[in-house]
């Protein structure tokens, strides 16, 4: 049973989706930062995909140089504030903290990072400036973490940068796809506004780039193009009943929830299909919305889940019930979802097989599919020379992030297949350096 009551007001919603990493108070940051050992060649830095000088920014917080601390963070990661909140720090910087080695409490690096960047953002501290115009321009497709990071970096290098974004707001998965208890919409969007105010790149919203004509037009107007398009909508399971109205994709579900908040209507019981972090988020969020019965069903074993253990624990503590080794065969219902038919699975000779005669059905009013997302294949086909791998990810040079078409660079989920905000921020920045090298060769 769900541990949460249905939110009636926005206050209820905020309470149910209370921030997991709340903003530190000054004294808390002071004391926490004092614990940092200032390790040599610090493991936390190595564990951070963007290699932020973590011991330095922590020391700067401690000495009251919070602006310097924010500068240290943004120097390596343009999504510094978002990453402090949404990064799976337990398996990155905080997971590498040497205090873990004596069963001690690791430094709360994520919250300290957020403390510094939040202060800079909320006080609108001037940290960045546009580079001297170099007369060149770059188009960025997608205002998600990788596109924004690429745009910021290029702006400091003197490029005229324009971002084309399909949605009505920036930040990509940060505001649209992460669990609401990780970061609020306001905080995610405010970081982008802060960066944009100082770096001056333009964003055209509600401007999806889909046609050959648009690409041709962009190519003719810009010296290079960065593809930060992410990945597509939830992929189809190809089972019967999938077209029933109460069957939704997890990404779409999270997106709607984040903006509809307490007004989103959810039924009494929900089944979430999948074993990744998005499945955990969707299950956890359903429970926090007061759905009485939430089943999380994964076709493999608990050990095989792609989700982090702490995301799973979070879902369980919210009242989610988990079922493993069950594969969906059919979504039942006549014009309306009634339940899901599953078959038990097992591993035989290293392969996942269905156990004959083990079919069972769980009734529910809604199904959330968190079983992977489609790739943006159709757009990619319109770019000559662009190479894709077998998983339809864009193939790039891993140093310059240049694609098979020299004018096109790419980064983020479209290249890595879907990772964390921090990985995308890193790739966007690296791609900007690659573009700079290309245009100034």
């Amino acid at each position, binding site marked *: 049973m769900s541990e949460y009551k249905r939110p009636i007001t926005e206050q209820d919603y905020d309470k149910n989706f209370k921030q997991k990493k709340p903003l530190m108070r000054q004294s808390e940051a*002071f*004391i926490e930062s*004092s*614990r940092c*050992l*200032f*390790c*040599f*060649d610090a*493991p936390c830095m*190595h564990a951070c995909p963007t290699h932020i000088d973590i011991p330095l920014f922590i020391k700067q917080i*401690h000495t009251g140089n919070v602006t310097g601390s924010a500068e240290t963070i943004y120097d390596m990661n343009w999504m510094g504030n978002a990453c402090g909140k949404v990064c799976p720090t337990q398996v990155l910087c905080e997971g590498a903290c*040497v*205090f873990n*080695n*004596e069963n001690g409490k690791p430094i709360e690096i994520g919250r300290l990072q957020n403390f510094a960047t939040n202060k800079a953002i909320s006080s609108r501290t001037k940290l960045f400036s546009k580079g001297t115009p170099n007369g060149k321009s770059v188009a960025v497709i997608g205002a998600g973490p990788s596109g924004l990071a690429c745009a910021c970096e290029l702006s400091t290098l003197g490029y005229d940068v324009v971002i084309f974004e399909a949605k009505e707001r920036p930040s990509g998965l940060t505001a649209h796809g992460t669990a609401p208890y990780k970061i609020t919409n306001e905080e995610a969007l405010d970081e982008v506004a802060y960066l944009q105010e100082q770096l001056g790149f333009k964003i055209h919203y509600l401007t999806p780039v889909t046609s050959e004509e648009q690409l041709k037009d962009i190519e003719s107007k810009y010296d290079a193009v960065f593809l930060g398009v992410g990945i597509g909508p939830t992929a189809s399971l190809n089972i019967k009943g999938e077209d029933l109205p109460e069957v939704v994709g997890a990404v779409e579900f999270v997106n709607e929830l984040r903006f509809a908040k307490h007004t989103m209507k959810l039924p009494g019981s929900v089944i979430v299909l999948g074993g990744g972090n998005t499945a955990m988020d969707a299950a956890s969020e359903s429970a926090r919305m007061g759905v009485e019965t939430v089943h999380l069903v994964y076709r493999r074993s608990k050990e095989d889940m792609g989700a982090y253990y702490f995301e799973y624990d979070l879902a369980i503590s919210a009242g989610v019930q988990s079922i493993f080794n069950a594969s969906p065969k059919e979504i039942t219902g006549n014009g309306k979802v009634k339940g899901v038919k599953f078959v038990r699975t097992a591993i035989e000779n290293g392969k996942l097989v269905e156990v004959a005669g083990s079919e069972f059905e769980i009734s529910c009013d809604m199904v959330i599919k968190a079983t992977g997302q489609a790739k943006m294949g159709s757009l990619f086909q319109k770019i000559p020379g662009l190479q894709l791998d077998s998983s339809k990810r864009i193939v790039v040079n891993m140093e310059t992030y240049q694609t098979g078409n020299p004018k096109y660079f790419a980064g983020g989920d479209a290249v890595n297949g879907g990772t964390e905000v921090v990985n995308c921020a890193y790739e966007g920045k690296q791609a900007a350096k690659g573009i700079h090298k290309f245009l100034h060769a």
Partner: protein
Amino acid sequence: MADLSINFAGIKSPNPFWLASAPPTNSGYQIMKAFDAGWGGAVWKTLGVPVINVSSRYGGMNYRDTRISGFNNIELITDRPLADNLREIEEVKKYFPNHAVIASLMVESRKEWEQIIKDVENAGADGIELNFGCPHGMCERGMGSAVGQEPTVLKTIVEWVMAAANIPVITKLSPNITHIESPGLAAVEGGTNALSLINTIKSIIGIDLDTYAPYPVVDGKGSNGGYCGPAVKPIALNMLRQLGQHPQIAGTPISGIGGIETWRDVVEFILLGATSVQVCTAAMHYGFGIVREMDNGLRRFMDERGYKTIYDFAGLALPNVVEWKELNLKHKVVASINKDKCIGCQLCYIACDDTAHQAISISGDQTNRIPSIIEENCVGCNLCSLVCPVENCITMEKRDDGKQHLTWEELTNTDRIPVTFNDERAGGRGHYVPEVADALKHRKN
């Protein structure tokens, strides 16, 4: 069971824990509370002609998240009329007849000294402490450390006091002097019954980055203050042993003061010869209740070692404090890292490689962050063990067989010390030093 009671130059006290003459002993109310909390004695806030104090009086020296690792003040002696203080001394003694109430005094003329001594004796004080230490404000008026820094003046005043006093007299010394033995000897020659040290150290605790004035800031300005608290303990310990080892001063009871907060501090002061201790900053930081920890820790220490009274171990460390030239040059220790305890912070590595003797190596591989000692390069300096955040992870292991003993003094006496700039006998000769250019190998792109 340990008996903590003392008889300090005739002043009896149920334990050696006294509050030093300072803000905590400003009134009878405070001293009564302190005795009730477990303190054995108190040195009353210095009496004299009452002063006028400024607002903003203290400054703290913080280290990381530790508040007040050092403390400074610009408060002067009592600003209350003498009659009020005398009445309260009398009252406290009625409630606590077996506790030690010592009157700290600071006046100018011989006549004033004679009068105030008579007054405090009549009020029932158990002893007198002469404040020759205050390094701020009062010294500008020819008192406090102005006396402590002039041994001949100090001796004269001690002689006046001894001629007038019928109760034990403690002379409190200022550390703001090159040789503490000079005022110490002057006080002993003047006939003092006991000594106490250290008073506060002349200091500027810090500069306010908004007003560019020293803390504590008084209307845009500041003055030097007197420094005390945990940070001054090492200075106090050294001065304590300097007095304790002086042939003409040794034997005079000394009350130890300077950064005492825990039972360990108390034991260290007693091991260097103190037979009472005085505390101020710790009480100002944590309240009088801090004495519970000192009391329990001292008793446990004594019970575990079988000491009946503090006199059983007082001064036991004094013979082990020698001049550098008497240290054994053949003693050899090297660092050893306990790989099971190491958490891989590599602070030892970078401390040694950057600032010591390049005797620790690392793999450079993040999956193996445990450093290794290069024994042949290790000079046994201790730095790595000091920076290591894990208790007892890096230990210093003895490597000599203990059979050889050779001191600088012996080398000097037998003409075997280096005497020219490129002497073959230089201690570091033959010791590993990396190539100069190797420094740049550590550069990152």
